[in-house]
């Protein structure tokens, strides 16, 4: 059998394969480029960007949990201007989509960074309204359907006709109404899930391990929550979904795609195996071949409901 078709079209964002890497876990690609050929990755969601450079939170910023971890990086990044000048030209050397994860503390800031970034040479904007690690903005925008609608609509208008992904938080009552609000406001695509808020306490010192106390949980432990949310969301929206949360092998990818994800993203698993993306791509290809599936898109949403 010839190689299966891996290309996916996420409502205008075309990826040569459905495997992307999750924002904040892959920097701007430079470090992992020493371990994997970035040309083998469908798209790179870069570290969360803000208008001005941000120093992030104090350390410790990580606490390990059973099959997962908490982080409280707090959007440390060099700022949008630095990104445009230094990181886009670097990433453009590779055949991979550049997806800019953008952040703000109020609607004006979200719009300003969206406008600047949409004019830059990126393939898509990923509007992050779900970061649990900053005081202002972030998660506050992602948990109320009215706010989600407002910020998405404003950013949609500020970003011309650039492809727009809205990244959703799992820390919500009903993911469906949040997803519908983003869709109605003009999102081209959804990505989910961002991290779940969590905490670890050191019983000897009786203090939380993270300097900031609370952080965002990721890794295999969150996978069933993420699959459920993708499944629920896929049942109500028409726009495609990029699924993520604990993916570390091809079986996880198939699970997310069956649940309704049109593409997936790998985050924490990169820390465990810097070459995980390539391994997953190879294994996924073999899986499709041995099951006589000649197009990856044929499994999307094919879970039996």
């Amino acid at each position, binding site marked *: 059998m010839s190689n299966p078709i891996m290309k996916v079209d996420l409502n205008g964002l075309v990826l040569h394969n459905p495997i992307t890497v999750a924002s904040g876990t892959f920097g701007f690609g430079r470090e992992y480029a020493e371990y994997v050929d970035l040309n083998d990755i469908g798209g790179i969601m870069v570290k969360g960007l803000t208008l001005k450079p941000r120093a992030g939170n104090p350390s410790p910023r990580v606490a390990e949990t059973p099959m997962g971890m908490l982080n409280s990086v707090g959007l440390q990044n060099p700022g949008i201007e630095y990104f445009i000048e230094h990181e886009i030209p670097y990433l453009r050397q590779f055949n991979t989509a550049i997806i800019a994860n953008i952040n703000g503390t109020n609607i004006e800031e979200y719009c300003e960074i969206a406008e600047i970034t949409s004019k830059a040479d990126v393939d898509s904007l990923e509007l992050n309204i779900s970061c649990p690690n900053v005081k202002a903005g972030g998660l506050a925008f992602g948990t109320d359907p009215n706010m989600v609608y407002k910020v998405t609509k404003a950013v949609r208008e500020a970003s011309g006709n650039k492809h727009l992904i809205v990244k959703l938080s799992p820390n919500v009552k009903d993911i469906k109404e949040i997803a519908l609000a983003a869709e109605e406001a003009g999102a081209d695509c959804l990505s989910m899930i961002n991290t779940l808020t969590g905490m670890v306490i050191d019983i000897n010192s009786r203090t939380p391990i993270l300097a900031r106390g609370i952080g965002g949980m990721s890794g295999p432990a969150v996978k069933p929550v993420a699959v459920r949310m993708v499944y629920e969301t896929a049942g109500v929206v028409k726009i495609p979904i990029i699924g993520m949360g604990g993916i*570390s092998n091809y079986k996880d990818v198939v699970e997310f795609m069956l649940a309704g994800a049109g593409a997936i993203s790998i985050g924490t698993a990169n820390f465990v195996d810097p070459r995980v993306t390539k391994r997953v791509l190879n294994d996924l290809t073999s899986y499709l071949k041995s099951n006589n599936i000649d197009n990856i898109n044929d499994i999307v949403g094919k879970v039996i409901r």
Partner: protein
Amino acid sequence: MKKTYDLKIMDREVLSQEVFKILLEKPADMPEIIPGQFFGLKADDNGYPLLRRPISVSRVDANSFELTIKLVGQGTELIYNKKIGETINVLGPVGNGFYLEEAKKNSIIVGGGIGISPVKELARVLKNKFNDDFPVLLGFRDEPFDLEDFSLYSSKIEIATESGITGTKGYVTTLLEEHLKENEIDTVYVCGPHVMLKAVKLLCDRYNVTTQLLMEERMACGIGACLVCTCAIKEGTEIKNKRVCKDGPVFYGSEVVFDV
């Protein structure tokens, strides 16, 4: 392209109740290992625990290298339980080692607790480079360990113990100050607990002596991508959060901001 390695455990030696060493085979295609560099060890092959454990190199031989590990929790315990002949997956060597291009003979090596292990490899390398022994000041809470190995790389070892069981009772800084008072010292290379790094830096500042500190922070990726391992570093008038895994783990004492 870089990769992770499955390396055979060639030997294991128990040094004390809580410290052991493993000897790993060194593959031909592994880059040179510099003192102060470390590896990310997968404690178990079945995937749990999830994250790699950062462990410094304590000695490099032609076809093998040694790690010295303190039992802390589940990860280090699983590594301890591995059998000779089994393999362990490692990432690395990663990080910048000690900066030795301009190393001068009149320098001092300081280690404390499990932090003595990376400076052992430093003592070995400096001895080879200068064909001379460097003063090595080691601090322990109680019973010292690994001194036999250290004696291969320096004849000028001084010990301080908090319990007073052997050597000078107290901290390495007491030993260090004697040297700083009496001699013109170029650089002090240090690895040890956070409080010790800070004490040594403050002491050396008073004598205008350069320090290189091997810093520790909790890590995830180990290669500079995730930004969870940062420490506060002065750059000109600015304070920046730099990555311990990639920009360090060795930093000049003059750059490190201890009280953030």
